[in-house]
């Protein structure tokens, strides 16, 4: 009786120690979007069922498919066109829709789940400026490019059978110029595009880098690309043995759109968050799962502030990526704020994208101001030039600032700067508007001139000159000499704009990445609990500033009148640590005081013992 009781107890103990369910393996491809959705699946299954999940890394979609067939994994995220081509090795019929592959795979023991609801196919993109100047709207328009087309693509798409790059080129009869530039990082592909290393980039439609960058997507006018409906594929066995898992995954239905995926991809590829964190936050915010049982690693945030009215276009995405390279353990977030300088000074942001003028807030005379030492320049992004644009009249007027002058959007630093320039000659802007609107109003003669701070070669202005209706003018020499020190005289070379014959003398303002200044940091900065409490937003080190400059690809130093990391480091290196005479005297006095105090204590003790 005792023995059987013992045996029973032992078997119960063994049974209790067995895991309740075998883990469900999910394939984890290296592409960002598939990784995010795979992590969503993991969080949903772990959060709503008692099934443990195991993530299995795959090299690529083919590897994942192979693992699924070999039953090393039970669930994977893929796209319908891939699924079709993997089976049939030909281009999909009926455009590779999800319904088609579902029918194709069902007899093979796989189930394509219809829970995701978005498509993510390949697109060809060109810079907007190029698209406008060459009128590139469709893929067939690429044949206008003389000498052929230089393409940049991922190696996966380059080698993709059936509907990859070779098939695309054959379908459209596009001639290649030189070798295809293979870059797997989509953001670096776009950088190559804008560095002029390629004419066209092939990326996925929901790529995060597309969010803020102005690119023209060429229409697939000859209907080449099949549908890439995103879906989860699972084994038919899993459908039978774990129906609750499949039901749980249905929670995603209706929540994912191409725009949503683009935002999520942006958070991973540009801001640097891990896919599991992005997935987790999305599910939490959409209330798809409860979050108590989920643990996710936290990353320090590096916030880059930008004044709300400013428009930097794709520069912001570039800056976020660059900062992430220098601070790989941080999630980098761009934050539009009312006052970027205040945000850094108050510790709400670590960096700000600002013009040099922001170091000099206005005073009453609105020309010069004391320098704001709460921030310091860390890296130079470039310069914005003041473009004085007038209609293409026969003769240049004597006063190039005569008539009605418009400036950029009200509240923006560019508008403030342009207004300040006008005030130097006792004028005021008559209108505040976006750059493209100013150009329109110039053409319709509502204004006579526009003062626009922008980078050389900006698309809207380039387009205006292409129309041959507008001309760029130099600023008067006397005006240039009377402007504040942060506006440096510059010369725009001839030919910078279509039809621009001569050089243009104007002024430019540096656009910098600025960080908090240590001169404003209270208390001891050498470390210690007091410093740790008081200093929340530490200034950048010289090494970090150097790394930023290298990553940006611009080693130009900040304007000498700006406080900067390099000036600070130079001053710090000159400090010898030797005390001044005054400090020595003070230290000696304090020590004499303490020694006298100790002597007095000693006398008290001796007196006390004697009494």
């Amino acid at each position: 009786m005792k023995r059987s009781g013992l045996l029973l107890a032992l078997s119960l103990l063994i049974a209790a120690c067995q895991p309740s369910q075998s883990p469900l393996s999910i394939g984890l491809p290296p592409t960002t979007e598939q990784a995010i959705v795979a992590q969503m699946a993991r969080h949903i299954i772990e959060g709503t069922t008692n099934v443990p999940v195991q993530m299995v890394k795959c090299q690529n979609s083919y590897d994942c498919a192979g693992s699924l067939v070999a039953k090393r994994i039970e669930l994977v995220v893929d796209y319908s066109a891939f699924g079709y081509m993997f089976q049939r090795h030909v281009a999909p019929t009926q455009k590779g829709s999800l319904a088609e592959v579902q029918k194709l795979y069902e007899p093979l023991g796989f189930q394509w789940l219809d829970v995701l609801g978005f498509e993510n196919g390949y697109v060809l993109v060109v810079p907007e400026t190029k698209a406008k100047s060459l009128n590139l709207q469709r893929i067939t328009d690429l044949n206008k490019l003389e000498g052929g087309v230089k393409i940049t693509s991922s190696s996966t798409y380059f080698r993709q059978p059936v509907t990859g790059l070779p098939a695309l080129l054959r379908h459209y009869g596009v001639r290649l110029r030189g070798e295809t530039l293979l870059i797997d990082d989509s953001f670096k592909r776009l950088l190559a595009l804008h560095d002029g290393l390629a004419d066209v980039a092939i990326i996925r439609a929901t790529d995060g880098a597309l969010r803020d960058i102005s690119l023209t997507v060429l229409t697939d006018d000859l209907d080449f690309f099949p549908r890439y409906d995103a879906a989860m594929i699972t084994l038919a066995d899993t459908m039978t043995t774990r129906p609750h898992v499949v039901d749980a995954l249905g929670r995603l239905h209706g929540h994912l759109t191409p725009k949503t995926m683009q935002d999520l991809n942006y958070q991973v590829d540009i801001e640097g968050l891990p896919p599991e964190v992005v997935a987790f936050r999305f599910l939490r915010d959409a209330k798809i799962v409860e979050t108590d049982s989920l643990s996710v690693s936290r990353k320090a945030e590096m916030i880059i502030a930008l004044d709300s009215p400013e428009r930097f276009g794709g520069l912001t995405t570039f800056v976020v990526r660059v900062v992430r390279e220098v601070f790989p353990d941080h999630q980098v977030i761009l934050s539009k704020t009312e006052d970027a300088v205040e945000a850094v000074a108050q510790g709400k942001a670590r960096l700000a994208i600002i013009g040099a003028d922001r170091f000099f807030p206005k005073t009453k005379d609105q020309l010069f101001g004391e320098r704001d030492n709460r921030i310091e320049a860390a890296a130079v992004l470039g310069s914005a030039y003041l473009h004085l644009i007038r209609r293409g009249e026969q003769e240049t007027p004597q006063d190039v600032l005569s008539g009605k002058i418009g400036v950029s959007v009200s509240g923006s630093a560019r508008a403030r700067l342009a207004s300040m320039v006008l005030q130097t000659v006792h004028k005021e802007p008559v209108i505040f508007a976006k750059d493209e609107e100013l150009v329109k109003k110039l053409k319709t003669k509502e204004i006579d001139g526009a003062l626009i701070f922008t980078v050389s070669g900006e698309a809207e202005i380039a387009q205006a000159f292409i129309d041959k209706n507008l001309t760029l003018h130099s600023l008067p020499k006397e005006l240039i000499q009377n402007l504040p020190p942060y506006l440096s005289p510059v010369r725009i070379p001839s030919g910078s704009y279509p039809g621009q014959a001569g050089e243009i003398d104007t002024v430019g303002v540096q656009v910098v990445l600025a960080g908090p200044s240590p001169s404003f940091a209270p208390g001891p900065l050498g470390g210690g609990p007091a410093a740790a409490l008081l200093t929340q937003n530490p200034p950048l080190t010289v090494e970090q500033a150097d790394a930023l400059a290298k990553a940006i690809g611009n080693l130009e130093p900040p304007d000498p009148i700006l406080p900067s990391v390099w000036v600070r480091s130079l001053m710090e290196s000159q400090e010898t640590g030797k005390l001044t005479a005054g400090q020595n005297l003070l230290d000696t006095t304090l020590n004499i005081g303490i020694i006298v105090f100790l002597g007095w204590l000693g006398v008290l003790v001796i007196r006390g013992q004697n009494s």
Partner: protein
Amino acid sequence: MSSTTQHKSKKRGGLFQIALPICALVALGGILDPAGMASGAGLILSTVFRALDWFFMATVTTLLILVLWLAFGRYGNIKLGSADDKPEFSYPSWLAMLFAAGMGVGLLFWGVAEPLMHFSGAPGNPPGTPPAARQAMTITLFHWALHAWAVYCVGALVLAYFGFRKGTPYLPGAPLRSALSGKWVNPTAWLADLFAVIAVALGVAGSIGLGVFQLQSGLHVLVGTDLQSTMMTASILAILIICYMVPLVTDLDKGVKWLSNGNMIIAILVMLFVLFAGPTAFLLRTFVTAFGDYITGVVALSFQLFPFTDIGPWLQNWTLTYWFWWIAWAPFVGVFIARISRGRTIREFVIGVLFVPSLFSVLWFSIFGGTGLYEELHGQGGIVKLVREDVSTALFALFDRLPLSGVLNGTALVLSFIFLVTSVVSAAYVLGMFTSQGSLNPSVRQKLAWGGRSGWLGDSLDLIRKRGSRSYSRVHRSHPIYADHSASNRVLAYRSSW
């Protein structure tokens, strides 16, 4: 007060009327000119530390030697009380109350943060390496174990000895009045009381500031509130002030005691959870190693000021700052320890006050700091980066790596809040007692006044951190230089033209 001893003291008034305005001025300065206040305080501190670092180190080390000598020498059997006084509390109760006296928001705040900061930046070993980890634990324990408790022990011992054997009130200056004579004694004793009041008031303000930061970080982690919002900081401070003001005006002493004990139990449970949910074997190994390293290294560390190297500033910023804090807190902690220790011998007292909380500190830092170090050395890493950005996130960053992180983070928030409330209530009581000539029942008016001042002072510390005001310097205009920016503008042109 011993019934057999009559204490003659010359009553000196005016402490409340002088100490309160001084603290109010400091608070006002911090609110109106946070940068100026911080710069000024920083300048004074750095000057004093630079000139008198030897004095502070020698003083604290001497206090440690003194209490050990008192305990294990011929004075060890002296009872803190009259001959027939029995200990008021049993050993377990007494030890538990010693734990409670020593446990506070500081342990929560620095438990993870300090070892990791030393791991990534203390001089002596390459940061991020195993030797750096070992050294980090030793340095941390050097700051939080025997030396800290020796300071409290001396403060408490003096108050207890004179209070129970000579019948003096629990005032820092009272022992001076009792033991010494002369015209200078009373003014000096009065100054001692004044400095103690200011030190406790500023010390508790530091705790408030520290606790508010941690609460704001915790709320950000738990529910996603704005980490940098001044409004959020003010709201947390306001709720805190209301919560600690209520017990000051009502008879909620027992409730506060119950909260404090409950908080301590929860803190210990959290510690045990981290021990068993984390890398248990590693943590216990860390405990034994850290204990051994500390015991073998404490003598050398106690006299080390690095005069021949350039890491003197590091030592001043860390070690001496802590000595300063412990000395400032000694009157406050000392009063409580003294009051619960009637009937103990000096030997019992020192062993209990010095060694037991120190051992607990070793355990606490081994578990929390050890888990952080484990994550850095063998886990996902990344906590050091977070701590370097914002110290107040350390505990929450660690809890994110453990199971039931949401529960842990919420518990940490509650712990911080309750520790803060109970500390401020106690501090207001002690300050009221000090400024009413040692009365064990200070008036509600006095307690409220000190509670309010503490809130102001905490607010000024928060503002210093937020850096609210501007500072400018005039720049002379330089000659314009014509420059061709075309090359450097390439980057901006390409990027912006997208």
